[in-house]
């Protein structure tokens, strides 16, 4: 029974080539958009190496200082993190990294543009980079202010080619650093681990950064577990309240909060520095709205296409009823047709997705992008597609199947 219905469903889809082609294309394209968006989000917020402890990491991105007539927002200063973010209860490790800065390297008569970060030694423990050569710099190098560097693979290739790199000097902005290690490339979408060159923060000529409250550093707090987050936040906030701001004339208050990557991103995007609480739901809302916009419209179109096609087939429903089809079997038939169509569209999307993702990865649009197929996103998308397929098949079929056969035969769809 199911076999013959399946055969007939495929026959009908084959017969209605234009409709089938448009629907397949629409379903596949919609799913592809979802897959790419999912891959992008995953690449920004998901847990990937080197951020292996993503689920228990808190970040201090920005600090805000407020006074009666002045306010300023900037990345955290090294001094603030060094003095007030250490030894927080519930925190296993604390690392400090600068934001990334553009720099230039002249090597062998060639100018290379690259991104540079200045970090401490803990940075290499909180984030688990894959070292292809050598090792990270440790406390000894950081304390001594050694001019050493870790490169990523692409930068190592750009500068040294096939020649060995370890132990050789790399020149960045007029300073020579000895190469200690080479790590695998990390996508530029990963704010924390992305860079081309890493050097000890202490290698700077000017050591004034060590005292700054606002500056260009981020703090990474590796908590014991996510349950410790509130405790960590409360303690950090109360420490900030005790800061003596007499050295910062005009400012009375300093605000900063260790938050997850998602919450910090939301805070930065929506500029919600005033509120002590993070507002991640805003980012969720915007992402949801975008999803609705980009996926809602094609979904409505596909549903509309399916519904009008079934209404157009009212006479067929009348005939089938006249020869003994029950309303249920008619609904089943159209649902089956739609499910087959949706699954075919899903298969198409699944075949095309790796190609599209690889194309984006290789386009250089996002340096070192590593967009991958997120099967959960795909499964969710396909599930939704099947849901709408079932609904848009069942509803009109049910309406028509309940009419008297003569009414359906005359196309009384309205």
């Amino acid at each position: 029974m199911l076999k013959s219905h399946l055969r007939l469903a495929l026959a009908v889809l084959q017969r209605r080539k234009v409709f089938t082609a448009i629907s397949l294309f629409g379903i596949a394209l919609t799913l592809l958009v979802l897959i790419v968006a999912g891959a992008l989000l995953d690449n920004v917020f998901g847990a990937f190496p080197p951020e292996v402890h993503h689920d228990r990491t808190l970040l201090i991105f920005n600090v805000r200082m407020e006074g009666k007539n002045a306010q300023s927002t900037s990345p955290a200063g090294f001094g603030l993190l060094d003095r007030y973010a250490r030894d927080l209860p519930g925190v296993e490790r604390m690392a400090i990294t600068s934001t990334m800065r553009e720099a230039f390297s002249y090597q062998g008569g060639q100018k290379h543009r690259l991104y540079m970060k200045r970090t401490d030694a803990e940075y290499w423990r909180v984030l688990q980079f894959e070292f292809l050569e050598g090792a990270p710099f440790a406390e000894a190098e950081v304390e001594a202010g050694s001019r050493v560097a870790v490169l990523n693979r692409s930068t190592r290739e750009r500068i040294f080619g096939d020649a060995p790199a370890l132990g050789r000097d790399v020149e960045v902005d007029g300073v020579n650093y000895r190469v200690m290690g080479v790590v695998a490339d990390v996508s530029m979408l990963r704010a924390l681990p992305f860079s081309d060159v890493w050097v000890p923060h202490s290698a700077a000529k000017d050591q004034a950064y060590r005292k700054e409250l606002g500056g260009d550093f981020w703090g990474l707090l590796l908590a014991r577990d996510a349950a410790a987050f509130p405790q960590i936040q409360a303690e950090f906030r109360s420490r900030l309240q005790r800061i003596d701001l007499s050295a910062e004339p005009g400012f009375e208050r300093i605000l900063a909060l260790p938050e997850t990557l998602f919450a910090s991103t939301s805070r930065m995007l929506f500029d919600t520095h005033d509120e002590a609480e993070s507002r991640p739901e805003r980012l969720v809302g915007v992402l949801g709205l975008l999803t609705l916009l980009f996926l809602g419209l094609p979904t409505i179109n596909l549903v509309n296409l399916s519904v009008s096609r079934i209404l157009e087939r009212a006479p067929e429903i009348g005939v089938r009823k006249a020869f003994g089809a029950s309303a249920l079997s008619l609904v089943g038939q159209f649902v089956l047709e739609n499910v087959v169509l949706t699954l075919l569209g899903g298969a198409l999307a699944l075949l095309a997705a790796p190609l599209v993702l690889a194309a984006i990865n290789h386009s250089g649009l996002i340096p070192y992008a590593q967009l991958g197929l997120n099967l959960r996103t795909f499964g969710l998308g396909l599930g939704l597609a099947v849901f709408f397929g079932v609904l848009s098949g069942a509803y009109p079929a049910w309406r028509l199947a309940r009419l008297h056969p003569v009414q359906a035969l005359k196309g009384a769809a309205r």
Partner: protein
Amino acid sequence: MIRLANVEKVYRTDRIETVALSQIDLTVAAGEFVAVMGPSGCGKSTLLNLIGLLDAPSSGTIELAGKPVASYRDREVSRLRNQTIGFVFQTFHLIPDLRVLDNVELPLLYRKMSGAERRARATRALERVGLSSRLQHFPSQLSGGQQQRVAIARAMAGEPRILLADEPTGNLDSQMGDEVMGLLEDLNQKEGTTIVMVTHDQRQADKAHRTIRIFDGRQVAC
């Protein structure tokens, strides 16, 4: 087999009420072959639709197989349409997306039956109407007369006890028309199929056991 008592059918549209049938009393015994005649628009198709359970009367009762149709439940109505009745539509109503063979298999699709048996029965029915060379065609690839014969094959394929045929020879030349009539007579005589047939052709009506005449929605005495 079939009994109509004081049946009335009124079509109501936004403004107009059309009385398509009124005060129809009709009994067709099992094994009977009845012709229905009357001018265009007098209500013949409407009558056949009511008997075929394709529409509900506005008032009056229709009995089929000894029970008022209104008392049947949905599932039973479906089963009656599927197993007891075979319908030949005036305008064929073949399913355009399906091949001829699949169209003829339709009544069998809603029965418990193996695919092979379905295929065999449908093929046999198409052979009887002389279309065994058109099994894989789509309806749009057939002439009007050929489509009409597919519609007849479809109605026969399920071997129903009642065959309702709305001008089954309307699109056929006289020779083909005679062949189809022969087929219906055969079904009636050899298999005892009860037949109600609408026709405009007195010659064909003469081959039935009796003729019901309708004029302006009412039965008229012959």
